[in-house]
């Protein structure tokens, strides 16, 4: 099948303005857009700049707008697009480095602002003793949002992202992921950034972030739940949760009568040390 790729080209060191260049290539049934772009780069035009790494939708490097919709190039099959002319553009709302490569430093700086790690009041993180007690349903509450790969498609799809200071869908989804984590204690520390004029209230639930998400993270759901949680906490309907406790040390453990004793030791302490030294 012959397909025309219309690719956005822009080299800031040479070009004054972006332009589109067309490449006609033959594709197979399962050819992905990334494979087609690599074919173009290898055989037709080696000046094409693309960013990719894993080729299987895990690293989130190859996000681009394919026929106007942000998608991962490695997960998109050309034959499934059902069009003979495929328009390839870089992700919108980010500065363009070259051709299809955009600069994510603004997004990652915002991601850093919401403190994407577990915050605790006790010293358990610095001096770990035991595991935290987390129930399975508490784990499944955050698992969906923890699957985010930070590919930036949601930021490109969001109609409010032309405001460069807006935190953006995936950053707010990560904020909710850490706030709703039962092990976390950092509600008050993150509240100032989330509740800022460019925080979660700027989301108007256009829902495009959830539509384009390649991992099913559903950032729109996370942001609405974040708003709900802030509203209910502010109205006093819900208390700020306390972090899950550390598992208590095991005491009075007795062996069941029908469980047999372990076999005698064959490796002793001084013996193991000597093998390590060797």
């Amino acid at each position, binding site marked *: 099948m012959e397909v025309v790729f219309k690719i956005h080209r822009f080299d800031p060191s040479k070009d004054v303005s972006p332009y589109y260049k067309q490449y006609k290539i033959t594709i197979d049934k399962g050819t992905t857009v990334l494979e087609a772009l690599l074919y173009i780069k290898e055989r037709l035009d080696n000046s094409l700049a693309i960013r990719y790494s894993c080729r299987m939708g895990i690293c989130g490097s190859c996000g681009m707008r394919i026929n106007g919709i942000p998608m991962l190039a490695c997960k998109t099959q050309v034959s499934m*697009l059902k069009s003979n002319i495929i328009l390839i553009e870089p992700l919108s709302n980010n500065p363009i480095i070259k051709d299809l490569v955009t600069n994510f430093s603004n997004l990652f700086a915002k991601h850093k602002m919401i403190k994407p790690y577990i915050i605790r009041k006790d010293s358990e993180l610095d001096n770990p003793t035991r595991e935290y007690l987390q129930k399975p349903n508490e784990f499944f509450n955050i698992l*969906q949002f923890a699957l985010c790969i930070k590919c930036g498609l949601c930021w490109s799809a969001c*109609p409010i992202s032309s405001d460069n200071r807006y935190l953006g869908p995936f950053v707010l989804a990560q904020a909710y992921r850490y706030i709703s984590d039962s092990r976390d204690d950092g509600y008050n520390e993150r509240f100032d950034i989330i509740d800022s004029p460019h925080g979660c209230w700027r989301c108007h639930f256009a829902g495009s972030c959830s539509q384009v998400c390649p*991992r099913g993270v559903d950032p*729109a*759901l996370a942001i609405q*739940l974040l708003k*709900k949680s802030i509203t209910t906490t502010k109205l006093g309907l819900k208390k700020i949760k306390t972090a899950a406790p550390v598992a208590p040390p095991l005491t009075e453990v007795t062996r069941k009568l029908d469980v047999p004793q372990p076999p005698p030791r064959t490796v002793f302490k001084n013996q193991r040390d000597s093998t390590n030294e060797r």
Partner: protein
Amino acid sequence: MSITETKKHAVASYPKRYNLERYMFFIQRATGIFLVSYFYIHIFIYNQRIDAALWASIKTAFGNPTMYPMSFIFVTAIMIHGANGLRLILTQLGFFIGKPKLPVYPYPPSSIGKAERVILFILISVAIILIIVALGEFLFFIR
């Protein structure tokens, strides 16, 4: 919590255009800007009511049937804005958007899923019925 397996062979389908809610967002913006300008003109005009002579001239300027289309546009805008706004209030308070779940391929998002679409269609159809009623009323009196 359980992992549900889809019986049908899950096929990747790529969206050709953005979702309905995104278009509703732009409609909400446009009707909002129209309604804000309408509202401030409306309260300014209505506050001239204490002067009898001025009120009579305003009444002849705005109170004839040529202003009915303007009123109809206002009714249309306020119905669409109100219906979509009601959905936004409900969803932003956490109703009809589902719960976090384990994503299963092809990852249908629950926030713009079935429940949310149903509530959107119900509210918009109520708004459209009211708009048709208003249109009938306007047409009846213009004639």
